[in-house]
């Protein structure tokens, strides 16, 4: 029983990570109609910046390092929105946007490799340790992941519902032309969205530092599974993204009890295909 609960918590924690990934690209998708294929590289960049520069090189305490990472990534998001996302969203077909973001991902990876080197490293002692509740042992990083993710999800919802900027962003996602006619500056909105998305990516990157080593391939699987959970929950739908992510995380962790764990990654792909075949609109979304 304890094992089951422990597994469930691990699954939910991983699920929340996938859900965050899904949220992070969904808000860009809603704002620009582009799918950010470089999002896993954003995560990678965030993790390297946090672990490599702010903690290891500059020796900042984790809290300040987290803040610095968030600010830097926000700026990075804004800049890449103006330089890349805005021009791409104006091109005639979506295809070039896909290609453009894929290439952007390649650029980030190369930059990361050149700046921090190709060798993997890890951050000792960061979010390590575990809590014991009754007879259930829960790792500290998993608890933090669940807490932080819930916090982000809730505050994003509040942001979109109650602040003026958030409302304007929802307008842009509904109808770009109408929003710009109503006096919403679409470019700045897109930039803000990409900035927020980059911040979420950075947080994901920081959260997975204790789980994986910091290396160039650390985030590619997370990125892919985030996509899968978006499709499972309903593309472009925030609550669906969260549900899909958690479902994927739990299925994966219990699935790996049945099949050898090296094939664990295949499960998300199989789930993705099943959903595309049976219910391409996802769990929570009606067909338009």
């Amino acid at each position, binding site marked *: 029983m304890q094992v089951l609960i422990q597994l469930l918590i691990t699954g939910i924690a991983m699920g929340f990570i996938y859900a965050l990934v899904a949220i992070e690209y969904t808000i860009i998708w809603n704002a620009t109609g582009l799918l950010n294929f470089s999002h896993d590289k954003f995560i990678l960049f965030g993790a390297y910046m946090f672990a490599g520069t702010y903690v290891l090189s500059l020796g900042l305490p984790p809290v300040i390092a987290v803040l610095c990472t968030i600010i830097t990534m926000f700026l990075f998001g804004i800049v890449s929105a103006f330089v890349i996302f805005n021009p791409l969203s104006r091109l005639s077909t979506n295809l070039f946007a*896909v290609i453009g973001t894929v290439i952007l991902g390649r*650029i980030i990876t190369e930059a990361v490799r050149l700046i921090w080197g190709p060798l993997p490293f890890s951050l000792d002692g960061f979010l390590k340790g575990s809590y014991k509740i009754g007879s259930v042992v829960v790792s500290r990083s998993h608890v933090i992941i669940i807490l932080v993710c819930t916090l982000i999800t809730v505050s994003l919802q509040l942001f979109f519902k109650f602040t003026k900027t958030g409302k304007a962003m929802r307008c842009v996602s509904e109808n770009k032309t109408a929003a710009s006619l109503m006096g919403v500056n679409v470019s700045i909105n897109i930039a803000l969205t990409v900035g927020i998305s980059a911040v979420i990516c950075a947080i994901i990157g920081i959260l997975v530092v204790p789980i994986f080593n910091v290396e160039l391939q650390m985030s590619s699987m997370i990125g892919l599974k985030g996509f899968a959970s978006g499709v499972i929950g309903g593309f472009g739908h925030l609550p669906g993204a969260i549900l899909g992510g958690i479902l994927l995380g739990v299925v994966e962790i219990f699935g790996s009890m049945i099949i050898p764990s090296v094939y664990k990654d295949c499960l998300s*792909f199989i789930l*993705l295909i099943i959903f595309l075949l049976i219910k391409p609109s996802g769990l929570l979304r009606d067909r338009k």
Partner: protein
Amino acid sequence: MKKQNKTLIIALICIGIAAILPLFISNNYHLNLMIQVLINIIIVLGLNFITGLTGQMNLGTAGIFSMGAYTSALVATKSGVNPWICLILAAVMGIIIGVGLGYPSLRVSGVYLALTTIGFSEIVRVLMTNLTDLTGGALGVNNIPVFSIFGHEFRENKEIYYLYLVIALLLIFNAYRIVNSKWGRSFLAIKDNPEAINASGVNIAKLRIMAFTLTAVYSTIAGSLYAHYVGFMNPSAYNIEFSINYVVMLVIGGIGSVAGNIAGAILVTIVPELLRFIENYYWLVFSIITLLFVIFLPNGMLSLFNKKKSMKK
């Protein structure tokens, strides 16, 4: 008609150059590079069908290519079947992948193909690495036999080059025929305006799946050619970066046109060798150039020469 003659003349000149070039090259390394160019041309031509014409992103070239290569290599090494039959089996594998992966991903409109192909690629890599009994795991498959015609084995690089040149020319010709036929036009129509082609009584989903199947067949054939040429296969190189390289070739050369595809494949394969001196920065520089291409010259290099087809939004 005049335009066709001009195309024919240019094509013949290019074939002539391709045919006599090896006579002046004795360096084995350069010959290897040229064979690699031929294989890349085949892959990019294939990618052009789904990505260049119908506008659906395929990021699974690595997976499809290695499925082709492994199919060919495993059948050849385990059962000793003639490599030519293995090549055909690889093409059949392409059809299976094309329909099997295309059906769930392309039935509904959206960017799903990009997602499923990335996933497929990763799964293939995981399976190739871990199904040790079948694929030899990370060590891979060794001693893959070479092609032979009437008992003559193609072992020398020069011989392989000419053999593959013939195959590549056949495939280029086929691609040219398809791109400039009703098929190419309707693929392109799907990218330009799916609703309109739908209203003309065309089943978009079916057409997209057909285009993707063509892509897969071209890639698996290229995989098979590659396997029988290098003689060994291991899964390590076939990751997403591998797939992106071909997208880069497609964009740099020119989306949608056969000549552009060929130019892109040649350029992106050869230029790294010329730019050896920037070594570490090579991919960074090249990626930035590609990104600039996507933003400022989305129809590739060839659109510089082909001013008439200005396609602004």
